[in-house]
């Protein structure tokens, strides 16, 4: 009985599988460009034409002609562990276009926000949706380095799309593997080690000679930490490899780490954390009374306003950090943005917000420069590289590698008149590119910073 019941579906399935194979064969055969029977898809390898014929929007809709709307895909994590930062970016993006005309040089700016969930695989699905289905010519995203890398990699061979990464800061995308990503640019973005290079120099200038580090154990932490360690040690400072602590991403209890740091004979500590770990580290640091004993030098995200705004002022008062973003910077561009964002959301803007706003500003200005023409994406990028903009970050110009040259600020957490606190620049390093203080050619010879390679000149 049992075997007979099985036989029919089995036979049916076998037949249907044969049909599948038969159907798949024409397109899957050796000569995919030749058209076979009417039923078979016209498999053209070079353009990804759908079997339905012309159903593929990535070639059908991306015209870039004048008068057509310019579709932009905004890819940010608006659910998941880093949703707060992603939401900041989306808010700022929308605020920019609320405060500026969406009619630019004859093109109407349209966009669709998609959620990466902070996951590379999801990001790839959303890229398909935005480019293939929505017809986006520009993708603005993503946030985490791994999602940005997945995004850039998926679109690197697509000449019809420009990828703008205002937040994702993986060093190599505009450094060693730059040539693989001809349509990738960091308008409004940064590289991880760009700001910590400066902090390494500043720390040495302050007279610190022996530093410890505590950084999140993943690429961003490795790169930021390496930037600090390399410049600090090349200037003459010392970082004992044993004094470099690495905590897992998402660590919640920093008591053991802080205790270890207490026992070290150092005169400063460099720290980088992201997300919820920031509050945990800073609170522990303060609770253990370390705040008055040992200077804590913060990588940009450790005092980013989005990570510290809910802490008590006494925990963060006077913390020193280096950043390309300083919401307390007293320029019209910065304060106009801070005010707009504050009025709309009731919060002071994080660097995630400033980055998305600046990316929108770049697109706006580039469109004006090309007269609304986006048909040639390389020409569009070329026009973007020629811009010199006054952004909320300060003056910004793109280097030959597609990364902005900024003023980098040494920032201090100070209280505002309204009782809230923010990062105020106390010193400015002008026109810092991603290689400073090294020469690009020389710098690109060394590997990207990792846990193993921190560029430590005091080692051995």
């Amino acid at each position, binding site marked *: 009985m049992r075997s007979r019941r*099985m036989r029919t579906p089995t036979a049916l*399935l076998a037949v249907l*599988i044969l049909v599948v194979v038969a159907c*798949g064969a024409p397109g899957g055969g050796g000569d*995919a460009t030749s058209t076979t029977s009417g039923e078979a898809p016209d498999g053209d*390898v070079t353009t990804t034409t759908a079997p339905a014929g012309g159903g593929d929007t990535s070639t059908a809709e991306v015209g870039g002609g004048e008068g057509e709307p310019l579709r932009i895909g905004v890819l940010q994590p608006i659910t998941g562990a880093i949703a707060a930062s992603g939401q900041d970016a989306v808010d700022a993006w929308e605020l920019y276009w609320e405060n500026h005309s969406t009619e630019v040089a004859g093109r109407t700016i349209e966009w669709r926000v998609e959620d990466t969930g902070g996951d590379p695989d999801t990001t790839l699905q959303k890229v398909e949706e935005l480019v293939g289905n929505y017809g986006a010519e520009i993708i603005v995203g993503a946030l985490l380095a791994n999602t940005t890398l997945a995004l850039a990699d998926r679109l690197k061979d697509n000449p019809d799309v420009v990828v703008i990464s205002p937040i994702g800061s993986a060093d190599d995308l505009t450094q060693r593997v730059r040539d693989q990503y001809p349509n990738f640019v960091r308008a409004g973005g940064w590289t991880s080690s760009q700001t910590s290079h400066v902090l390494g120099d500043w720390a040495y200038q302050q007279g610190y000679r022996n530093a410890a580090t505590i950084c999140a154990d993943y*690429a961003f932490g490795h790169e930021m930490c390496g930037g600090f360690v390399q410049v600090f040690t090349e200037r003459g400072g010392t970082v004992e490899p044993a004094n470099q602590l690495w905590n897992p991403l998402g660590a919640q209890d920093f008591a053991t780490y802080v205790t270890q740091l207490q026992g070290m004979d150092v005169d400063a500590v460099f720290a980088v954390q992201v997300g919820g770990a920031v509050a945990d580290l800073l609170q522990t640091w303060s609770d253990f009374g370390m705040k008055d004993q040992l200077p804590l030098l913060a990588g940009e995200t450790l005092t980013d306003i989005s990570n510290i705004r809910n802490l008590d002022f006494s925990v963060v008062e006077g913390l020193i950090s280096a950043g390309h973003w300083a919401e307390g910077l007293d320029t019209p561009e910065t304060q106009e943005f801070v005010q707009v964002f504050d009025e709309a959301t009731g919060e002071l803007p994080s660097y995630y917000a400033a980055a998305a706003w600046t990316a929108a500003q770049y697109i706006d200005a580039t469109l004006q420069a090309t007269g609304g023409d986006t048909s040639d994406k390389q020409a569009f990028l070329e026009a973007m590289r020629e811009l010199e903009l006054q952004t909320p970050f300060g003056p910004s110009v793109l280097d030959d590698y597609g990364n902005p040259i900024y003023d980098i600020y040494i920032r201090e957490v100070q209280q505002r008149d309204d009782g809230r606190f923010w990062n105020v620049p106390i010193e400015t390093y002008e026109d810092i590119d991603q290689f400073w203080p090294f020469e690009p050619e020389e710098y690109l010879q060394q590997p990207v910073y990792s846990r193993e390679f921190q560029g430590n000149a005091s080692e051995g």
Partner: protein
Amino acid sequence: MLKRLSLTARVKLVLLAGAIAVGIALPYMVPQFFVGLATLALILGLFSMSIDLLGGYAGLVTLGQAGIAAAAGYGVGYMANRVGAGHLTQILVGLALGLLVSAIFGAMAMRADGVYFMMITLAQGMIVWGLSMRLTHITGAENGLTGIIRPPVIGLYWQFYWFVLGVVLLCSLALYVVVHSPFGSAVRGLRESEARMRMLGYNTALQKFYVFMVAGFFATLSGILLVYLNQFISPSAAHLTASALGVLQAILGGLGTLVGPMIGSFILVAFQNVVSQYLERWPTLMGLTFIVVILFAQKGIVGAVSKSWYAWLRRRGRDEELSEVARQEGPVALESSESA
């Protein structure tokens, strides 16, 4: 021949044939994006079916299946990105790695059951995740491995879709054969009462190892397909979330039904990629859906549908048909309708 089948079997066959027909015709009907989603859903469905074999049939709910799939994916990715080997080598290494990991995990877990089995597999999955985060030279840590290109024969999205459809159908067939074989009965015996199986002379630990290997094989295949779909792999492929989603899909569709996980997979992919376009709070809606399913349809969507179907048969007075079903499927199939 059809006449000799019961009404229930005929309806099932018609539905199955309809689904396969739609599956084959899909690239002609919808744009590229949706074909891509269907490919993803098929692959995740296969992955979830491998979990169903363990969870639904053997009663061993696993939370580490993504570790096996990811190991296979990393095998492919490593050969493609770091070694630059050909596609055959990539696939063989992927298969070997997936099976090796299955064998190790199976050997570790074969003496456990219930919650303990779940915890062991959870740890196993996270070991793969931890290694993929840590072995930067091999896995690229959280930046992942790129540069994985599909074999040219299945390079275009619709070619790949049909290929995946074919593989998934073959695998479903194989799984159907497995669960209806004597081995499948022994596996169900594990779920019903391991002590009795042991009494009957079965080496239950070995049975568990075998079924773990079979499930591992299908998870391995899904891992290889997934890495060729995304042309990318990163640690999140091995994360607990990926394993748990596979289990959720199976529960949503109906554990122990094989077709349920596939249905669950399509629903989940639709939530993630289609509903999310219109609704920012799509995870809330998804969560509510799960709650409703757990509260009102404990055997998942497939369970609920068959329950209503048998209730309808009963109202129509087709007792003859019901006894036929009972004879074919065993009294278990009717349990849900009788308790109603």
